[in-house]
């Protein structure tokens, strides 16, 4: 690698469209699982609040799942989802997202004061109306905090998918390594970090829109 600069800017200039496509692919692979994870975690969290006995075993299970090394899980799925398919990477990422979002959902739902719950009932809210108008909005700061952790982790984990043939920006690491050419690797690291940063900022913005009160009380960071 003698004499090869860390970044060859003209390569980046020549490959802007390519880098954009990889970034978009990466965003889909990493973030769709987080959305699905949210859709799974909220009902699961509701069930855990209603039947508290469910929570410990489920939380323990997902704690173990979260600790499983991503590459190993991708590989184990290959016989079912195929090599170099999006599903091989997205299915495990969904499980990781649920593992982060389930505890935050439960914390958020439990943070609603009993007096508020009873006040809603006294005002004539049915269980469904109370859930959508009182409990879920109160959980929003917790959910967005969980989403931030889940999304950022998912974005950096998705790159490992390149080793099983589908990792969005992760492909740049393989490509650069095989050609002893650091420019794509640096571009990949920067783009992954940028994608994480932008997603994180969007989620902070979303929280401010949905739960403007959270900034003052500091709930859910």
């Amino acid at each position, binding site marked *: *690698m003698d004499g090869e600069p*860390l970044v060859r800017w003209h390569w980046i200039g020549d490959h802007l469209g390519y880098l954009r496509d990889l970034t978009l692919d990466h965003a889909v692979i990493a973030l769709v699982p987080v959305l699905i994870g949210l859709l799974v975690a909220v009902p699961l969290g509701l069930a855990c609040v209603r039947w508290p006995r469910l*929570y*410990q075993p489920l*939380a323990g299970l*997902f*704690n*173990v799942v*979260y*600790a*499983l*090394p*991503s*590459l*190993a*899980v991708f*590989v*184990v799925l*290959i*016989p079912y989802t195929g090599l170099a398919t999006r599903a091989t990477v997205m299915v495990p990422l969904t499980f990781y997202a649920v*593992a*982060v979002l389930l*505890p*935050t959902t439960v*914390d958020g739902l439990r943070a609603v004061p009993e007096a508020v719950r009873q006040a809603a009932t006294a005002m004539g809210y049915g269980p469904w109306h109370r859930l959508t108008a009182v409990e879920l909005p109160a959980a929003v700061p917790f959910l967005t*905090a*969980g989403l931030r*952790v889940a999304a*950022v*982790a998912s*974005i*950096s984990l998705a*790159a*490992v998918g*390149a*080793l*099983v043939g589908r*990792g969005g*920006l*992760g492909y*740049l*690491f*393989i490509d*650069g*390594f095989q050609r*002893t050419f*650091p420019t794509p*690797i*640096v571009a*990949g*690291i920067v783009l*992954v*970090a940028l994608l*994480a*940063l932008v997603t*994180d900022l969007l989620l902070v913005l979303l929280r401010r829109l949905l739960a403007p009160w959270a900034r003052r009380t500091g709930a859910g960071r």
Partner: protein
Amino acid sequence: MNWLNWLNTFFSAPDHRSGPDAIVHRIAEHLVISGEALAIAAVLAVPVGLLIGYTGRGTFVVTALTGVARALPTLGLVTLAVLLAGVDDLAVLIPLVALAAPPLLVATAEGIAGTDPEVRDAARGIGLTHRQVLFGVCVPAALPTALAGVRTSAVQVIATATVAAYVGLGGLGRYVIDGLATRNFPTTLGGALLVVLLAVATQLVFALLIRLTLPPGERVRRSAPSTKEAL
């Protein structure tokens, strides 16, 4: 072919029973690499964490580190380190250490800062020096939190060491990467299964350690996973 056949092929291959590609040897390699990375990370991160946690200064470093460490792609760091520094064990250790250090630092600082202020005041009041308060009062109180950080780091290092096989590191990742390269599924799957078992075993060992460091009264309260820990 099914799982049992795959695993049978993997475990009964002569290469996997003795020699440099033996399963026992690969597991030992994986443990040594992970242990080295974790030890170096601890030497770097724990003193800083103690200082930040005890003085309350520089907490912004903690917040920044948590965010950055989560956003960095391990595969990118590993490939870049090897391209820049060459394929030797030290070059591969750098990204492993870089990824293991932040959770350690954060957990140490949080554990120390979480010591009951009244207890700290009382310790000062009976005439202990700052050093005695830190090591005699705060460190024992911080152990469970700090160990949870070590667990997060350990699991992270085991996963990253697997990925680092791509750039030539030994350990269980060799089976996964070599199997993928040669389209040898039994090898890949066998390696993946061993990595999963190693990660779960590490979790269990740390769960036990954390339980042992908790004061008896606290042991009843089972700890639920928190957002802070998930890294």
